[in-house]
């Protein structure tokens, strides 16, 4: 740094380039570029012209000066001039200079300023030939090593070594550093320096509890007529992100703190996922008197759970970063039910509502073990913090003990009542229960079902809104005789009977809901209040089983097995976690250096980040734990600088002004003026020159436009995206057209067998049926479609006619899967073996070739049990009243899915009882087949045209059945039907 009057140059070396200016002038004038050589015979004529041209060519001197000025300004700007940098110019006559520089996390944000200031001091020391030591207060090295290395250097050397200084992601140790300095001064070689030493402290703004002491010590060390100089800064600039938690609304809440109240300040907190993508930002604002500002992230839960890092935007320090690990994300909640696992009636399952309520914001552990003891073991091993037990009357002794230990360590046991609990309770209840329960509003009861009363102030649920709709009709009752003071009642019925009771045991809680977790006893589980209640209970838990010391539990254990498990628990607590990624001083995640030592699980919560344990992620990849620099308890205390015998300096004087941008701007303006002058001059000179100037001007405008209009680029990108989309559309155009044509109108479809004759009959048959449908019913199908069962999409068609040939081949798995999903999603397939006449006795499992073929085709399809259409089946009345379902042949049976015996499991069955598979052998399409003049193509035997009419009626009934489902089975129509039958 060079000081010239009020100007200081931070990069003075650039100024030497100014000497090159006259050289540039000289070069421009004296050594013009080599001209183009042209042979020109009439040269003699040009001789006379030479003199007049030469004079007019030269660039006017003022233009040359202008250009020189532009170059000079650029050089000046590069030299980085600062106006009024007075403060560093004071000289002292001390022989040695010790510079303490705070490089803790709080200094990272304005690190450049600190380095500049440091360089200014070092430069000054170099000028006055002082010996210098630069002592960073935050070090990765231990004190002994530092002591060994500490030495006064010439300023120049100190300057070189100080390049390596970086901010560290932990708090500075000022006292230790000063100790190093005082020890150094006491050595023999530095004796002469001791009497003449000056100390400069480039402080950061925070106290860390040691600032006062440090300043005193420094004042003591300073000797001679030298002064202690302290460079300081206003403290309200330092921001830290203290913690994040799940707000009651389920959203992530971040707390930004600052050391000193003062001016209002606002900013953003950014949330990142593990890949470093920004998922969201939340604005925060400090009011003038606030030192804490809270903000919440309004994100969907899935995104919220992805967040691994929060950062105060633009702060760039380790303190402004909070890392989140899996623990802070979701809690593990164990769910155990006394009932057997039964999925057939999920809405009645005791755990269903709890599951639904908790799933969005926690990890549920639902053990499959029937054995409750094992289930509890299982849950505890998975480190659940909350265990919810629904209607388990009496826990086994060992289980109870294990749970007691766990509760004492901070676990929360939530129990729900039920018939079993009403019979017999156990020790793990907030209060002993009376045998039997209380039934409200039953047939033999005087009372009406009770509503909830508002939550009391002491209750955990205080503040939740109670609706009148919640009615409790049955509950278990606590024994009032045994109720003690430490029983808390969190919810009461309107008559005062406790509904939710809780008791604190050790660090944990036992909570009892006096009703079931399903709507058997009350409609509480159906209400939103229930979800909120469970959420509050879950938030109550700060339980981290691994972080807890289990000395108590050791004493409490009795059986060997438990001993072993506790040991294993302790082992995991002692297990050392290696650092996976750590923060550097600027709050960036980096690979840990070799100095970083592993931490055990239990240390993790109590360790204060330091040189060997920088904040970051520790532990294996899936279960990384977080060590954060700033915790919830951290309070930033500003350094008060109340030592009087020191000279205070500022990092940047208020009126110190960086001139670089202004000079650059001036240079650019002059350059533009120059360009303008060239344009104007060339207008007078010639058109070609004008063109060149216009190109120059255009280029300038273009360049500025490129910088000014980033939005255009984005637009262009959007455009390319759209074209990309249209390309894709182009590719799928055929499929798209097929889907469109198939869905714009209802179409009947048949499966093409590959046999031309059969396919034609299918086509004419469905076409004939379509015409009849259009004429008689509200269904107006378009022309039928033939489908290739393997390649065509089926979902567009409600009804599929599938003639089965005796030689039909088996289907491959993908096709089967397609048919399976088609049938499951509501499609209907009519298989027609068309062979009644050929097979004398038709049974679905008979030996007729077509039946075998049918088995071959759909045998793997998991067809449910079939039966001939029963008399009261919907098919018999869906449009016409039918008794039989003839086609070309008469006596074939139409098979539908059996309604009587429903087997659980994977079935080609529609949920609302409509058979998705129909099988006939009557060759329906043959009977329906009409030519273009509506004349039948094939004879119907033996019934003639009457039979054909009945075949059409069959077809109409089937299509009606396919399209309307079991609508006609509705009892509403029974009287009408009865009346018509009577007639």
């Amino acid at each position, binding site marked *: 740094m060079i000081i010239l009057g009020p100007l200081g140059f931070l990069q003075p070396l650039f100024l030497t380039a100014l000497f090159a200016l006259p050289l540039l002038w000289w070069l421009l004038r004296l050594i*013009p*570029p080599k*001209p*183009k*050589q*042209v*042979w*020109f*015979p*009439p*040269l*003699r*004529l*040009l*001789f*006379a*012209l*030479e003199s*007049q*041209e*030469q004079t*007019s*060519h*030269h660039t006017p001197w003022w233009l040359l000066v202008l250009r020189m000025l532009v170059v000079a300004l650029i050089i000046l700007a590069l030299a980085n001039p600062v106006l009024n940098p007075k403060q560093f110019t004071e000289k002292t006559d001390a022989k040695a200079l010790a510079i303490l520089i705070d490089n803790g996390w709080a200094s990272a944000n304005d690190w450049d300023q600190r380095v500049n200031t440091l360089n200014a001091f070092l430069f000054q020391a170099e000028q006055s030939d002082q010996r210098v030591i630069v002592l960073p207060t935050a070090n990765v090295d231990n004190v002994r090593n530092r002591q060994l290395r500490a030495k006064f250097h010439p300023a120049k050397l100190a300057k070189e070594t100080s390049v390596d200084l970086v901010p560290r992601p932990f708090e500075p140790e000022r006292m230790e550093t000063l100790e190093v300095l005082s020890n150094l001064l006491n050595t023999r070689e530095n004796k002469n320096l001791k009497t003449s030493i000056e100390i400069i402290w480039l402080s950061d703004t925070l106290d860390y509890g040691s600032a006062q002491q440090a300043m005193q010590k420094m004042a003591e060390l300073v000797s001679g007529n030298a002064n202690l100089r302290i460079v300081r800064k206003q403290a309200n600039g330092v921001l830290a992100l203290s913690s994040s938690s799940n707000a009651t609304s389920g959203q992530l809440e971040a707390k930004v703190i600052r050391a000193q109240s003062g001016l209002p300040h606002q900013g953003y907190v950014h949330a990142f996922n593990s890949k470093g993508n920004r998922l969201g930002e939340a604005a925060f604002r400090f009011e003038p008197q606030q030192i804490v500002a809270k903000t919440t992230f309004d994100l969907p839960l899935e995104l919220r759970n992805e967040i691994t890092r929060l950062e105060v935007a633009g702060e760039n320090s380790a303190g402004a970063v909070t890392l989140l690990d899996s623990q802070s994300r979701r809690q593990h909640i164990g769910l155990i039910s006394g009932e057997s696992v039964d999925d057939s009636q999920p809405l009645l399952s005791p755990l269903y509502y709890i599951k639904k309520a908790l799933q969005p914001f926690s990890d549920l552990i639902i053990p499959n073990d029937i054995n409750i003891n094992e289930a509890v073991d299982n849950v505890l091993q998975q480190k659940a913090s909350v265990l919810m037990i629904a209607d388990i009357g009496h826990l086994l002794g060992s289980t109870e003990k294990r749970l007691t230990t766990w509760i004492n360590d901070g676990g929360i046991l939530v129990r729900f009542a039920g018939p079993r609990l009403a019979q017999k309770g156990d020790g793990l209840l907030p209060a002993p229960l009376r045998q039997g329960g209380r039934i409200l509003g039953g047939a033999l009861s005087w009372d009406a079902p009770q509503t909830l009363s508002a939550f009391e102030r002491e209750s955990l649920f205080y503040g939740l809104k109670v609706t009148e709709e919640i009615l409790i009709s049955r509950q278990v009752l606590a024994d009032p005789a045994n109720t003690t003071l430490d029983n808390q009642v969190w919810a009461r019925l309107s008559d005062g009977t406790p509904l939710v009771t809780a008791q604190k045991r050790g660090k944990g809680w036992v909570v009892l809901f006096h009703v079931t977790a399903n709507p058997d006893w009350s409609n509480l589980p159906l209400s939103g209040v229930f979800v909120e209640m469970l959420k509050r209970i879950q938030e109550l838990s700060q339980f981290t089983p691994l972080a807890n010391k289990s000395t108590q539990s050791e004493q409490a254990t009795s059986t060997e097995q438990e001993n072993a498990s506790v040991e294993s628990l302790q082992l995991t607590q002692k297990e050392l976690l290696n650092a996976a990624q750590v923060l550097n001083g600027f709050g960036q995640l980096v690979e840990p250096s070799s100095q970083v030592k592993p931490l055990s699980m239990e240390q993790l919560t109590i360790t204060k980040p330091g040189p060997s344990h920088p904040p970051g992620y520790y532990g294996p990849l899936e279960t990384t734990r977080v060590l954060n620099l700033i915790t919830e308890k951290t309070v930033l205390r500003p350094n008060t600088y109340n030592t009087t015998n020191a000279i205070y300096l500022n990092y940047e004087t208020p009126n110190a002004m960086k001139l670089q941008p202004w000079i650059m701007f001036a240079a650019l303006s002059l350059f533009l003026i120059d360009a303008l002058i060239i344009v104007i001059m060339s207008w007078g*000179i*010639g058109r*070609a020159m004008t063109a060149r100037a216009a190109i120059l001007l255009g280029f300038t405008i273009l360049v500025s436009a490129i910088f000014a209009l980033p939005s255009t680029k984005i637009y262009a990108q959007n455009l390319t995206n759209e074209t990309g989309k249209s390309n894709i559309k182009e590719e799928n155009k055929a499929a798209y057209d097929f889907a469109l044509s198939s869905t714009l109108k209802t179409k009947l479809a048949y499966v093409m067998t590959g046999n031309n004759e059969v396919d034609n009959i299918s086509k004419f048959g469905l076409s004939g049926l379509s015409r009849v449908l259009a004429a008689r019913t509200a269904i107006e199908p378009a022309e039928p479609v033939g489908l290739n069962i393997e390649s065509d999409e089926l979902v567009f068609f409600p009804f599929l006619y599938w003639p089965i040939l005796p030689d039909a081949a088996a289907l491959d798995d993908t096709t089967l899967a397609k048919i399976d999903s088609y049938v499951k999603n509501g499609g209907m397939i009519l298989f027609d073996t068309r062979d009644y006449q050929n097979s004398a006795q038709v049974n679905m499992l008979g030996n007729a070739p077509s039946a075998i073929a049918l088995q071959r085709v759909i045998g793997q399809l998991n067809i449910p049990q079939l039966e001939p259409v029963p008399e009261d089946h919907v098919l018999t009345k869906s449009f016409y009243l039918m008794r039989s379902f003839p086609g070309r042949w008469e006596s074939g049976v139409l098979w539908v899915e059996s309604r009587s015996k429903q087997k659980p499991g994977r079935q080609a069955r529609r949920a609302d009882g409509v058979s998705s598979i129909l099988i006939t052998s009557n060759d329906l399409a043959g009977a329906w087949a009409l030519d273009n003049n509506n004349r039948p193509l094939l004879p119907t035997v033996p019934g003639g045209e009457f039979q054909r009419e009945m075949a059409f009626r069959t077809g109409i009934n089937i299509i009606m059945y396919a399209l309307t489902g079991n609508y006609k089975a509705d009892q509403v129509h029974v009287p009408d039907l009865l009346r018509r039958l009577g007639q």
Partner: protein
Amino acid sequence: MHTVADQQHSFKNIEAKASALARTMPELFIEAQKVAHTVAYGVHGRRRAGPGETFWQFRHYQHGDALNQVDWRRSAGSDILYVRQREWEAAHTMWIWPDMSTGMQFQSHLAPMSKEERGLIITFALSELLIKAGERVGLLGLSTPMIAQNAPQRMAEILINACQQNRMPANLPPENVNISASSECILLSDCLEPVDTFIDRCTRIAALGVRGHIVQILDPVEETFPYEGRIEFHSTGGAERVLFHKAQNVKQAYQKSLADHKAELQMSLKALGWTYCIHHTDRPAGELLLNLYTKVSGTQNTLSYPGIKHTKEDDGYFDTVRVESGANA
């Protein structure tokens, strides 16, 4: 101005030039023949009465006319005596001088050939035409008049020899020539030497009673000066140089200076009674040939050819005005 080195240099140049000339001669012949064939010609008459065989006109008998000149048959029809005149068909000597100085070898990107080549083509083509018309043709200062059909070839040989012996036509017409008064001469040159010296030579020739035609052959760039920017112009051989920082700035001045040069030349030639015309090498050679042919055969007043605008300012001066195209390119 000329040093010994320059001299040696020019000798080398001469040899190279002679061989180059010898190489290009056949092409020039072909080109010349092509050009000659485009100019139609019949019997080369003098277009005035004189000794010849072809009937020219009847005129009234005047005193002093020989009686045997009277056409009695025509006179018998009237009271007046008529004299039958025949067209003057006497053989004539035409001297051609192609300027073969190094400056004539200049060829710009706008021209299909150098000025020298154009001059030679015209020389050969004109020779062929004139010899077929029964005239005698010679190279001014280099040969005797020739009458044989192979005159162009012989001329070429003479020129090549002259080149080799460094007797080639300089940039000024030869100083001492021995030609008869009734002959005509055609000088093909770029006429860029100072007007005084050039006219001085012409005057010497004219003093012999010889009628002359000067053709100033110029390259288009010499006329339009299409140069821009920083350019150093040098003379033929590079001995003299002029640097311009903005060549476009002197364009107008140059053009004016050239126009002055031409005007001065024209004025001086007019005083000698010689004709003067300008030819640009980017124009077809046939244009110039036709122009010259009409001049030497004396039909310039009756022929008009598309593409050539005869600006008849006065008798004997023609300027071939180029259609200005791409002058700014």
